[in-house]
């Protein structure tokens, strides 16, 4: 079984986020990290391949330096990585990004495509839907459980009201939630061996894509302004004068939350 995992490079989540005032884009010049939401997807892929055999390939759309970030997934145990890096992609919105990612995935022809829930930087939580739509593949999201047998993927889908158990034939797209597993730490051997694993970098031309469909040119959305969220009007600040815990408890009990 071939499992493709879409992994994103995000700015180091521990560092404060900065917006570049001239482009209104997130400043990505600092250290990059593998999107924490994607680690459960990598883990799920590794477990499936450990169970069924096959290979795990990581796919990213990002600047070239993200090859180093992808090596974390390789260190965890993924077999190889594909990176689509092209200057023309800079400034792509979600829809444009989905165009590139879908094309890279089409080229792989995996049995199963896994996504994380969302990017820790832009938090769209929807790219998987756009990609599945382009590939005309069934999509199951919020997967807190995932099993594959006999050409079918079965997902335990987390909802506000409980779990749904749903199935789709392979190939399909699954976006996992972080409740699905506890991602492994890369082992020392994995870390030392990651650089020896195959990594491919593709341009738009390699995918037969036209620069007009990506970047700012290919994005239907434009960002005009960014600002901090307005303060919440009805918030209550509890100063700790020794009785704070009791007051918070009263507040919760009043609203039947505790």
């Amino acid at each position, binding site marked *: 079984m071939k499992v493709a995992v879409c992994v994103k490079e995000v700015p180091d989540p521990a560092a404060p986020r900065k917006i570049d005032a001239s482009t209104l884009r997130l400043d990505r010049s600092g250290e990059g990290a593998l999107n924490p939401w994607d680690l459960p997807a990598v883990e799920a892929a590794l477990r499936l391949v450990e169970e069924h055999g096959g290979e795990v390939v990581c796919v990213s759309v990002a600047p070239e330096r993200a090859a180093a970030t992808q*090596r974390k997934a390789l260190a965890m145990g993924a077999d190889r990585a594909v990176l689509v890096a092209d200057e023309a992609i800079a400034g792509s919105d979600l829809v444009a990004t989905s165009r590139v990612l879908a094309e890279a995935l089409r080229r792989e022809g995996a049995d199963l495509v896994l996504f994380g829930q969302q990017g820790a930087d832009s938090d769209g939580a929807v790219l998987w839907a756009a990609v599945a739509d382009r590939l005309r593949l069934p999509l199951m999201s919020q997967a807190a459980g995932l099993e594959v047998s006999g050409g079918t993927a079965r997902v335990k889908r987390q909802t506000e009201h409980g779990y749904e158990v749903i199935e789709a034939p392979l190939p399909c797209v699954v976006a996992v939630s972080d409740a699905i597993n506890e991602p492994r*730490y*890369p*082992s*020392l*051997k994995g*870390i*030392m061996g*990651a*650089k020896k694993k195959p990594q491919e970098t593709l341009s738009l031309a390699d995918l037969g894509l036209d620069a007009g469909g990506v970047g700012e040119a290919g994005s239907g959305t434009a960002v005009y302004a960014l600002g901090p969220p307005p303060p919440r009007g009805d918030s209550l600040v509890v100063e700790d004068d020794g009785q704070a815990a009791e007051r918070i408890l009263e507040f919760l009990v009043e609203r039947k939350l505790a």
Partner: protein
Amino acid sequence: MNLDLPEQHELLRRTVRELAGERIAPVAEELDREHRFPYEIVSALAELGLMGVPIPEEYGGAGADTLAYAIAIEELTRIDSSVGVTVAAHTSLGTMPIYLFGSEEQRHRWLPDLASGRRLAAFGLTEPEAGSDAGATRTAATLENGEWVIDGAKMFITNAGTEITALVTITARTGPDEISNLVVENGTPGYEISPPLSKLGWRASDTRALTFSGCRVPEGNLLGPRGNGLRQFLEILDGGRISIAAMGLGLAQGAYEQAMAYARERHQFGRPIASFQAIRFKLADMATEIEAGRQLVYRAAWLKDRGRSFALAAAMAKLYTGELSRRVVNEAVQIHGGYGYMDETPISRFYRDQKILEIGEGTNEIQRLVIARHLGLP
């Protein structure tokens, strides 16, 4: 000249940092308070190959270099010294003698369990009457009918008495002017291990006094040629110093980060205390000296990895980071004020854990002695 760490070493640092933050930090205070050996943590580290970092893969280790090893120890100690020393003593003192001086047969017998972290090993050099003067070993071993019969005592031996300890390598007098290294497996009749010693710091680490009375081990438990014990333990200590230096660095880094965070959030006179020059200068000094210490430690590791002589660099790194960690943790407690003196504030544990770094594996005075000797002083 290239001062960038290799990318895989950066990834290793991040990985150990994540693991230490997620798995060790939440339990460190409790392990310390209850003087409880961190079995679960050792097994988590073993799974990742961190209990045998510099031991080749064919013997069950991870086959990485000394730099990787130093970084792992640094990051563990940044969170918890007891865990740091458990790994450092197991690797540099417990496992290394067998890897460096053991025969192929001995390596294959003992290393796979040790380098994989399934079992632990200890090194027994210090005796009640032989500390800095380790050559004054009194423990004696005599060969009788194909067995070594050992009598004597060892003091302050790390990792000797855990439930998963496999063995201790001891130095013993095997002739009038002759010291040799012998492996004694736990459970050997005549080998007695004291209850855990109670200490100022490193409270979750296992420290024991050992006694040998008519303890018999097979003749084949001798490591390397008979009479090579002195040269062998000096070589072991040279390497071990890099790991203790990495602990000094990690402890200083951890203490500095806590002081930094506290100074930003603690307000007095209507301002964060980090805005007072007296506090800012302390933090600036810490950051500067830690950076200097880091270069010494990594350079010692780098020299060793290139097969160059590293003993002087290792002694300098050990001496410098030992004293560095004292200055930093002392000021870090100062920055915490009274809260820094409380058990529930991690910095107080760091303060207690620090002192041994100026004593173990050669006191500051002994490091200066070693350095002076390398300088060619009469």
